[in-house]
Each structure stands twice: as C-alpha cells, then as structure tokens.
C-alpha cells in the first residue's frame, strides 16, 4: 500500500516536472544563438529604428515583472484578455519572477525569438534599460510599462504616474486630516520606483505643507497585508492616538484596517491607499477606508494593446501615454465597483 502510494506520488511529481520543463524549452535551447544575436545587435547603429512591416499576425511578448504580486498578476491577466480581442496579435506572457537577472534573460530570449514587439514591465528600470535598448537595436518595437523607463529614444511607454496617484490622495488629506494629527505611514519595498515616487509625493504634497502633523510610526511592509497588520498592531499599542493611516498601496491599508476593525476608538480613522483593488473598493463602500487612487490594470492593458497595434501597423513610430489617476471616495466608489463586477473581479 505504502509502495503503491509512493509510486503514485512519484508519478505525479515527474509529470509536474515534465510539464514544468516543456513550457520553457525555447529559452534554454536557443542560448548560444542569443549570444551572436546580441553581439550583432550591439554593432548595429543605435539609431536604427524599428520599422513596421505588414503581416497577418504579429507576435508580441509581454515580459511581466512577476506574476506573484497581485497587481502584476492582474495586469498580466488583463493584457491576455485584451490581446484576445485583436485578431492580428498573438501574445505570449513571460514571468520575470521579481528577479532582474531572470527578466533580462527573458528579454534576450524574446529578441532571439524575433518577436515583432516586446512589452517590458521592469522589475527595476535601470537594470532593464540596456536590454530594452538591445530590443530597439535588433529592429524590434519596445514598450515599457508600469513603470516606464524614461529617455530611451525610439521606445514607447504606457504607464500611470505614481507621483500623481499619491498626490490626489494627499490633496484630499490636506483638508481631511485634523490639526496636530498623529499618523502612521506604510511603505512599499525600498528602491521600488512606484513605492519611492508615491512616498515622495506624500512628502511634497502633504507633509511639507502640514508641519503640525506628526508621523508616529513608519515602516516598510513590502506591499503586504500581513506585514502591515503586524506593524499596525504594535502602533496601536504604543500610541494613544492615531488619526490617519497613509499607505502606499491598498493591500497594506487593508491590513491596517483589519487590525482596528472591531475597535470603536478607531471609528474615525482616515485611511488612504493606492491601486483600487477590489478589497479597497469594498472597504470604501463600507465607509471604513477613506480614499484610494485607481490604477486600473484594464486601462493599462487597453492602452498597451492599442499602442502595440498602432506601432505594428505603422500608424505611429513612438507613443508615450499615461492612464488617468482617478481618486475614489465613498461618493464615486459605486461606478468602480460596477467595472470590477463586469470584469468578474468581484
């Protein structure tokens, strides 16, 4: 019986391994080709811009930063769905696993595989910059997104503006947060472009203008709900008064709220986030969270595919666009809940 079980389990394991391997044979088998391609590309003049060629179907590669982070996963799903609407575009999605090394080699592989257009969601903009330049040198269209990599001539970009996303919240907070308030701040991972830009925005748009407000706690909770909960539990212990939670994303804001949800002392707590996740919208609807800024993966996906289509069919040569940064409060949350419901996310 035990042997039988062991054999079955082993069988499942082998199957899983085989399945896992079969999805990436191209990337490993073309390793040597990549080298020569890369060296050729670097000899080509840097100004060589990709040119549109008429084709029935264009092959597009989307190199995601990571599919283990919920926003990146949402974006990857949205891009897949959006691509399905285009008959002339065939999309492949690759997972950078939040690793610069991995993401860069995926970009190299995509160049080797001669995709017509490569969309890069950088894990770390500066680390991917030379690889995006390689894409262009190989005569392939490049789009950077969430976050864009600036100042690469010939590349296009579709993004939200992280400074503005936090700023719409901060401007509201200027009016809402009481005099001499005590606030806590939850930050994203240090060095992350969006995390840093959102924090900088809160500094310039709010803290610099409100010297009366004291930060009684500030920690990096890495975008995570569970880490944010832990910090909030400790802050609630060490502070008699907390008037507001300023969080750089919705996950962490939701974590802070989870801690005080049954505590009447915090009924009037002001909580600000960014992203517009389903959870945050529901919390705003219930009146527990104050505001967030919608960073819509659907809008990003729509614009990305539209941009890709225009580049590939030769309508334009370079496009740089931003999605809107709508502020969501109790007054307008219903319309966004509708959007998520339609998309099946709620």
């Amino acid at each position, binding site marked *: 019986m035990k042997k039988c079980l062991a054999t079955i389990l082993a069988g499942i394991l082998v199957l899983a391994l085989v399945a896992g391997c079969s999805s990436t044979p191209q990337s490993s088998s073309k390793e040597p080709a990549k080298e020569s391609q890369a060296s050729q590309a670097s000899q080509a003049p840097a100004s060589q811009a990709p040119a549109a060629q008429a084709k029935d179907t264009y092959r597009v590669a989307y190199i995601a930063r990571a599919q*283990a982070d919920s926003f990146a996963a949402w974006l990857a799903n949205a891009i897949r769905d959006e691509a399905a609407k285009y008959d002339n575009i065939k999309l492949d999605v690759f997972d950078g696993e939040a690793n610069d090394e991995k993401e860069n080699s995926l970009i190299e592989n995509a160049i080797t595989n001669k995709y017509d257009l490569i969309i890069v969601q950088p894990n770390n903009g500066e680390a991917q910059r030379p690889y995006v330049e390689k894409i262009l040198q190989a005569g392939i269209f490049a789009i950077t997104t969430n976050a864009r990599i600036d100042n690469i001539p010939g590349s296009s970009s579709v993004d939200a503006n992280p400074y503005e996303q936090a700023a719409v919240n901060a401007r509201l907070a200027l009016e809402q947060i009481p005099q001499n308030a005590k606030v806590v701040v939850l930050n994203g991972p240090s060095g992350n472009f969006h995390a840093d830009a959102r924090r900088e925005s809160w500094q310039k748009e709010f803290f610099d203008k409100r010297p009366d407000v004291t930060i009684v706690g500030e920690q990096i909770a890495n975008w995570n709900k569970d880490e944010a909960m832990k910090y909030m539990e400790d802050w609630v212990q*060490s502070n008699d008064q907390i008037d507001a939670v300023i969080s750089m994303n919705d996950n962490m804001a939701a974590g802070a709220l*989870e801690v005080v949800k049954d505590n009447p002392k915090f009924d009037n707590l002001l909580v600000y986030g960014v992203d517009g996740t389903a959870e945050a919208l529901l919390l705003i609807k219930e009146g527990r969270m104050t505001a967030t800024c919608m960073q819509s993966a659907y809008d990003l996906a729509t614009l990305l595919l539209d941009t890709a289509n225009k580049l590939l069919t030769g309508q334009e040569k370079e496009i740089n666009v931003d999605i809107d940064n709508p502020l969501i409060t109790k007054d307008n949350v219903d319309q966004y809940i509708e959007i998520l419901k339609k998309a099946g996310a709620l």
Partner: protein
Amino acid sequence: MKQLGLKWQQFRKKYNIYLVLIVLFLICSVINPNFLSITNLSNISRQLAVTTILAFGATILIIGGMLDLSAGSVLALSGVLSVSCYKSTESLLLSFLVGVAVGIFCNLINAVMVASFHTPPFIATLAMLTMARGAALLYTKGQNILQLGNYVVFGQGSIFGIPTPIIFLVLILIITWYTLRHTRFGRSMYAIGGNEETAIASGISVKKMKYIAYAINGAFVGLSGVLFMSRVNAGLPNGAVNYEFQALTAAIIGGTSFSGGIGTASGTLAGAFIVGFLDNIMNLAGVDSYVQQIVRGAIIALAVIYDIGIKNHWKPLSKVSKAAS
C-alpha cells in the same frame, strides 16, 4: 561520563535560552511601558503563532536530520485551497481539513523524495517550494481571494477570551513536546539525527520515521495556512514568502542543532519569543526598518556562534570540525 557531559551541556543550553528570554522580557518592560500590557502580549503571541507552529515542524525535522524549505509556499497553497473550499461550501470543518490535508499531501511528496529516493532534503524541499508556490498562483491566477466571512474565526476569534491562534499554538506545543519526549517516533528522530547508520543498525525503520516526520510537519504547515489566511481575512497566494526561514530562525535560536539530534519544543518556543519580543520592542520604540533587519541578522549570527561555542567548550578543538561535518 560522556552521557553526563552531554546532559549537562543540554541543560546549560536550555537554561541559557530561558535566561536570555527573561532578561529580554525585563529589558523590554523597562524600555516601553506598553510592552507589558495584556493586549500587547496577546498581540505578540498571535503574531508569532503561525511562524512558531511552522518552527515546531521544522524542529522535529531538523532533529531527525531533515529540513523543509517549502513551508511558506505549502502554507500559501494549503491556505488558498482551504479558503476557496470555504467560499464554495461554507463549511468551517471541511475547509480546515482541506488545509491540513493539502499540507500533509505536499509533505508526503517531500518524504518520497527524501526518504525513498534519498534526495538531499535541501534540494527536495526547494523543488517543492517552487512547485507549491506555482500551484497556489496558478489556482488563484495570482489574485487575492476576498470576503471570507466566518472563516476569520480561526485566526481572529477567541474561546473564553483566549485568541484562537494562541490556543492552536499551545496545542501544537504540547503535541510536539509529547511526540519528541514520550513516543518511539520522537526517540527515533533523535537517534536518526544523531547518527543514521547507528539508528538503522539498532533496528529503527528510518524510512517510515521520515515519512511520519514529514506528515506531522505537513499537518502543522496546513494548519498554519488556515490560521494565516484567516488572520489576514484574505486568500493570499503570494503570502508567507520566506516564512520557512523565520521558522528555522526560531528553531536554531532555540537551540536546535543543524547537525541533527539536538533540540526541544520548549527551546523553539523560547527562540520564537526572543525574535518576537525583539521585533515588537523595535516597532514600539519606532526603530527604523533597515536597522531592524540588521539587528535580526545579528541575533541569528550570535545564536549560531553560541551554538558552536557550546560545542567548543565541551570538546577538544580537533573534534569540533568532525562534529560539525
């Protein structure tokens, strides 16, 4: 004589860990008056419950000369499957059992690799780490599962005023302590970790014992998955990353030796609380995030230096390198 030395050494080690814990507790109480409040202490216990339960599983495995690096990922997989079971059936009992069963299943695969195919546990469970995380992400498409309703009772509820995670923590502590101290399985773990050849020679069914060890670890991991998701009130497929290392940290600070054969449940509990008190007091005192990471690392380094130092103290230097290898 040798045995007496060994016992004394273990006693001293145990004693020292508790001394550290008590001193730390006193320092924390002096530094910040909020530290001693019942709510704060109950917070610390609730925050620690998940990683400490994982640490008990890790302790059993490390004593037996094994390891589980897949704990965090398997926790996430068990948790999201349990949550999704609750969402479709609304049955607390069933969803709880699903969580535990998934944990056991994944760890039986670990056991097949380790015990039947003699793969080094480090590699085998590293493979499981990626597979389980992949499965959790695939199943949820990387999206959080929301609106858990009554499911939160596991992680946020309380019985007679005692928070449920603490009840589970105490329960698992007793199970681990009893298993290690008073069962044939427990004794054979020490024997296998101490010297596997000798254990085989003395008639212990090593393979069977390793299967049992991974199964127990799996049940603990599955339970942790249920507690974790319930506490955060969401099914997070990307949750609990690196929790295996927090569990290992607690076990090692608590005196469990990586060379196998040494370790106790109560030591691991003390190890977990040393880390927990430190984290808590640093947050209460508003210590910078980066500094916290450095302090946490320094504590691990000190614990390992201490672990080796104890061996140095009791054996001539020439034998230390042999013992370490």
